[in-house]
């Protein structure tokens, strides 16, 4: 039979329920493979021994009614895990042991999931290539020296390398969808307010959302069903009726109206992205959807808006890292000097850059010109989508303007790095659900993704369209395990 590690989550659950595979066997397979895959650098903290122990306990007293019965799962190191080190990819949290559990991870453990370990990510989720992590670059399993995307780069790499059956990431401007696109995997950012932010290391609170990352669409529907919940501990969590995303998953999208926004045809976009998009439109038609041209006129203002709103919120959120109650402390002549040295040594370059931008745009005399202006433009961007959704049920776009790039290629030019998120950022600004599914390859055989954006709280339609298109696209990752040789 197929190796345990290459099974989808759905298949693994089925095998465990049918007692063909035990939880402990599954855990062992993933641990063994991780031991041979150190070169990927996916893990910041391994929880292997504990995972093996807990899987045995599950097998001794199995509960097959759970949604994730004894399934080992690795998660992005931005989720606080009780008594397991949580770093957010930063030196300043290098020794931080949370005393509480994030709601999203707690939901996974409640349904029988078992923590394999904590996955590498860009520092405080600020980056699009995983190169800002204090714990080093992550290799994209697709090819050597290729970035896995970011900020959930350890998650996308672990998934593509078969080190975990599914995983969770967080997405502030594209941090789930872009790495999914770069690794030929599926990544879903839910509607803002679907998944609790409690216990997730905060980056930009009005944009951050947790979401599933998986090998196929069905697996994302299973995991979304587990992690999406109303939570009193998050003041922006929304109490709406959540679907049973996996049992309601279907391919009946006949007659659905899918919008194609002309503004996403950006200058300098490679031909192959344009072709992929056209192919995607054909697939959607084949599935019975009706294609409608739409306009989202403020699209080109989304990135500049994001690069005011996100750093402003980050500078405020990151003010807590002062070297007093937890984390790194550097010594200083006095209290202020201690703060300044701690933050200078504890934060990496990109984080400092964003804290500085955020502090500047919020500083006296500049607030109206930058932050207020950005909030107004954010309103216009949201209104674009509101108007489009009067005409269509969902929107189809490319996920990224290019395939994965080489490690080091963009790390010296922040603006060119930021441009990576051009198609994903508007979705965060408007708080909408969006999924990236693998849809083809470029001339180097590197994966390319398509993005489906839905109406608020309409994850089910997004999943159903993705599920239908996935069948037509029939994408297969060709990963050679080069890092083991």
């Amino acid at each position, binding site marked *: 039979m197929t190796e345990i590690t290459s099974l989808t989550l759905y298949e693994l659950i089925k095998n465990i329920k049918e007692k063909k595979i035990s939880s402990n066997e599954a855990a062992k397979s993933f641990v063994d493979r991780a031991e041979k895959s150190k070169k990927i650098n996916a893990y910041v903290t391994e929880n292997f021994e504990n995972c093996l122990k807990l899987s045995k306990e599950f097998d001794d007293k199995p509960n097959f009614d759970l949604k994730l019965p004894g399934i080992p799962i690795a998660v992005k190191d931005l989720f606080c895990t009780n008594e397991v080190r949580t770093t957010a990819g930063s030196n300043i949290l290098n020794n931080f042991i949370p005393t509480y559990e994030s709601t999203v991870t707690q939901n996974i453990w409640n349904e029988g999931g078992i923590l394999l370990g904590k996955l590498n990510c860009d520092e405080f989720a600020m980056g699009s290539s995983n190169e800002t992590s204090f714990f080093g670059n992550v290799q994209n399993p697709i090819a050597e020296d290729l970035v896995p995307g970011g900020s959930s780069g350890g998650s996308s790499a672990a998934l593509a390398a078969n080190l975990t059956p599914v995983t969770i990431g967080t997405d502030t401007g594209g941090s789930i969808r872009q790495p999914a696109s770069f690794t030929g995997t599926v990544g879903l950012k839910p509607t803002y307010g679907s998944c609790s932010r409690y216990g997730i290391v905060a980056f930009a609170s009005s944009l951050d959302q947790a979401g599933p990352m998986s090998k196929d669409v069905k697996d994302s529907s299973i995991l979304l069903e587990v992690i999406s919940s109303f939570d009193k501990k998050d003041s922006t969590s*929304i109490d709406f009726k959540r679907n049973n995303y996996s049992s309601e998953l279907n391919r009946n999208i006949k007659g659905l109206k899918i919008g194609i926004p002309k503004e996403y045809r950006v200058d300098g976009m490679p031909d192959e992205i344009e072709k992929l998009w056209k192919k995607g439109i054909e697939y959607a038609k084949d599935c019975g959807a009706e294609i409608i041209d739409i306009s989202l006129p403020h699209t080109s203002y989304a990135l*500049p808006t994001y690069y005011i709103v996100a750093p402003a919120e980050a500078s405020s959120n990151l003010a807590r890292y002062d070297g007093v*109650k*937890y984390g790194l402390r550097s010594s200083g002549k006095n209290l202020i000097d201690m703060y*300044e040295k701690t933050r200078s040594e504890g934060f990496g370059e990109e984080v400092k*850059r964003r804290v500085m931008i955020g502090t500047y745009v919020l500083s006296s005399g500049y607030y109206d010109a930058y932050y207020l202006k950005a909030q*107004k433009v954010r*309103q216009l961007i949201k209104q674009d989508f509101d108007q489009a959704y009067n005409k269509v049920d969902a929107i189809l776009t490319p996920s990224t303007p290019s395939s994965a790039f080489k490690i080091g290629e963009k790390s010296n030019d*922040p603006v060119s790095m930021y441009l990576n998120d051009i198609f994903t950022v508007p979705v965060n600004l408007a708080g909408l659900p969006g999924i990236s599914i693998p849809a083809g390859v470029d001339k180097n055989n590197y994966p390319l993704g398509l993005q489906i954006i839905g109406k608020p709280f309409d994850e089910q339609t997004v999943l159903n369209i993705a599920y239908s298109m996935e069948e037509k696209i029939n994408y297969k990752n060709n990963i050679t395990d080069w890092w083991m040789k």
Partner: protein
Amino acid sequence: MTIDLKTVKHISKLARISLEEKKAEKLATDMNSIFEFIEKLNELNTDNVEPLTSIAETTLRFRDDKITSENIREKILKNSPEKNDDFFVVPKVVE
């Protein structure tokens, strides 16, 4: 508009991040290229637009003012870089 070295140093004071001279220069260059990109927003007239402050139209919920966590003082103090009995220690602030 350009952000000069003096402004960068002022901002780094506000952000409580100490900066070496060389790093400050590099940061000034980076910030200028980022703000050049941000200035695009000035093309838009937003005089009559309401700012979007929260994407989720929710009203803040109230809860009872009750302690919900058990006694985890030890665990919390364990994360502290410097402690003394039940207290966090900071450099002397009162002369």
